């Protein structure tokens, strides 16, 4: 067992920056993650989430700024950092041609877990991932949900104090996603700090604290409830015949802050709810769209993020 340096902050990031040529992927980002937290890292594709996580894992060198993980500097003490973290990358990156057991043994060896402890941990992973009956099967043959759980198991074989998960549930069906989050909770209850990126909003609700990134910059940071309160302006939910055209029609109308699709509905953030409930039906009628219902609703996290991203100039294309 590696000696865990007791630090209140599992992750501390100060003005962290990474450029690729002219492109600034991460732009002076600062935040801290407390020990034992489930910290959600959100943002549209290309926002810089993965680049940040790779810098924190010692896979990429920061261009500027400082970052420490478990009390160790990520650029100068990368080896110390790597000993104390578990990492699960966005794409499945275990060895498909090795069996479930062989993958566990490989990562056990790489993390210095050996002997009876490895045997114990292996059984724990197999049980946790529900792969006890598939231990001899080539990993490539497993369904994605199983692969993800095995990858999680390999990442926590050495019982790291901090776990980094980069979109661990992308492409996984909702049921598997739910059971994956049960595992994350289990680990967090055991005291593991979990740093997780996602673009599923319902997953964001599971986190203790959230950071929202857009275009390489951190645009919001706080508990889910705090972030909801950041949205001071009222939100109207509109039921209409053609949500996409309705969004077009409402964008730019005086008094409308943002208009965005929300499933088959449209969520419209306005400056004043009373005035908008008169104005909006008129604007819709002028554009030939129906207005079946228009009600004030509580903003969800998704509304918050859409509003914040739009306020910060929108997501990058592609």
């Amino acid at each position, binding site marked *: 067992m590696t000696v865990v340096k007791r630090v209140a902050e599992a992750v501390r990031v100060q003005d962290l920056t990474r450029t690729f040529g002219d492109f600034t992927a991460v732009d002076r980002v600062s935040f801290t993650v407390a020990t034992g937290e489930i910290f959600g890292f959100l943002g549209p594709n290309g926002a810089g989430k993965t680049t940040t996580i790779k810098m924190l894992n*010692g896979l990429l060198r920061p261009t500027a700024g400082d970052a420490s993980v478990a009390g160790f500097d990520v650029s100068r003490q990368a080896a110390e950092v*790597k000993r104390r973290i578990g990492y699960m990358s966005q794409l499945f*990156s275990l060895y498909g*041609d090795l069996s479930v057991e062989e993958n566990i043994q*490989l990562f056990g*060896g*790489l993390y*210095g877990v050996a002997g009876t402890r490895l045997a114990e941990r292996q059984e724990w992973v197999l049980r946790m991932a529900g792969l006890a009956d598939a231990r001899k099967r080539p990993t490539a043959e497993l369904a994605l949900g199983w692969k993800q759980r095995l*990858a999680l198991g390999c990442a926590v074989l050495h019982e790291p104090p901090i776990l980094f998960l980069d979109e661990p549930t992308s492409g996984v069906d909702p049921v598997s996603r739910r059971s994956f989050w049960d595992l994350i909770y289990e680990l967090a209850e055991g005291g593991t700090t979990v740093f997780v990126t996602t673009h599923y909003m319902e997953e964001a609700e599971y986190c203790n604290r959230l950071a929202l990134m857009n275009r390489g910059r951190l645009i919001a940071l706080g508990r889910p409830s705090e972030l909801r309160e950041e949205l001071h302006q009222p939100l109207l939910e509109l039921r209409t015949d053609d949500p996409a055209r309705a969004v077009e029609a409402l964008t730019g109308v005086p008094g409308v802050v943002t208009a965005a699709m929300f499933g088959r509905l449209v969520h419209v953030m306005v400056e004043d709810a009373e005035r908008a409930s008169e104005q909006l039906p008129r604007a819709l009628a002028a554009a030939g769209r129906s207005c079946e219902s228009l009600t004030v609703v509580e903003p969800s996290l998704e509304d918050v993020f859409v509003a914040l991203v739009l306020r910060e100039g929108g997501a990058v294309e592609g």
Partner: protein
Amino acid sequence: MSGTRLWAIARKELLQIRRDPRSLYLAFILPVVLLLLFGYAISFDIRNIELAVLDQSRTQQSRQLVEAFEGSGYFTVVAHLDGAAEVERVLSRGRAQLVLTIPPSYARDLASGRPAEVQLLLDGSDANTATIAQNYADAIVMRHSADVVLEGRRVQLPASLEARVWYNETLESRNMIVPGLVAVVMSIIAAMLTALTIAREWERGTMEQLAATPVHRLEVVLGKLVPYVAIGLFDVAVACAAGVAIFSVPLRGSLLLLAVFTLLFVIGALGLGIFISAALRSQMLATQVAMMATFLPALLLSGFIFPIATMPLVLRAISYVVPARYYVSVTKGIFLKGVGLEVLWPSGVAMIVFAVVGLSLAITAFRKEIA
């Protein structure tokens, strides 16, 4: 450096090789195929040259000359021609590589003491064979002339050449080819084998997971080397055994010395493969570059077939940086001459340098930054 981590990588690599048909083919099938192919196909020994005879003299004397050709062991008479018109036909169709024409006046000229001229027409499209055949024919006619003049009497010539061939007493070209072949085959196989190994990790995304663990690049490179070094040594052992058993090549020197040199060479060549693989990060590209970087130099500039001493200065200079050159001289030296370190030490030094350079390149090129 951690033994646990190094062993974890080595074990993983071994499991992957065992399950990858391409690696298995490269490791165990290709060396044998190359050895047999080259071993049987390349031969500079010229025997049974196809000869057509146009005997216009048709006398006992002319038949004696033809018998002298047949009795030499170098020529086989494949056709007796009836007229000059047939000469071009047999040569152009390749039925014979040369035609011996004995004129009608042959026996008369011999009897009268005039120089009797016979004509030899050669197919020069294979210049190498034609030159050798001409030399053989010259010698046969010369000896036959002497026999005719002396009519069986013995004379003492004032000077005579007693030639003895050392190391390859029977001048079998196979004896020269097989030891060199071991070296050439190994330089190709070694680089090709490891050319796949790092690029595969990049292509499959496993490098990212590997890089996030505390494993050091030295451990990755050495861990990957372990199984391939074992394969390399095994291949050389098989190739040497085949050389001795199938091609009857003498193995006169120390096996231990050969093993040590082989180890050095294999480490260098495998390191080169890892370097190429890590630098290019594509299995396809790395395989092609590894092939180009090893095959042609090993074939042409190693002294395997073409003697380095007779090459133009520029090529001779380049040959000094072709590692196969040193390994070829080692295998030939140990197989045929039975020499030891007292002769081979310069090659030994060169191969230590090669091993160190190969490994350093591999470790330097292996950067773990994952963009």
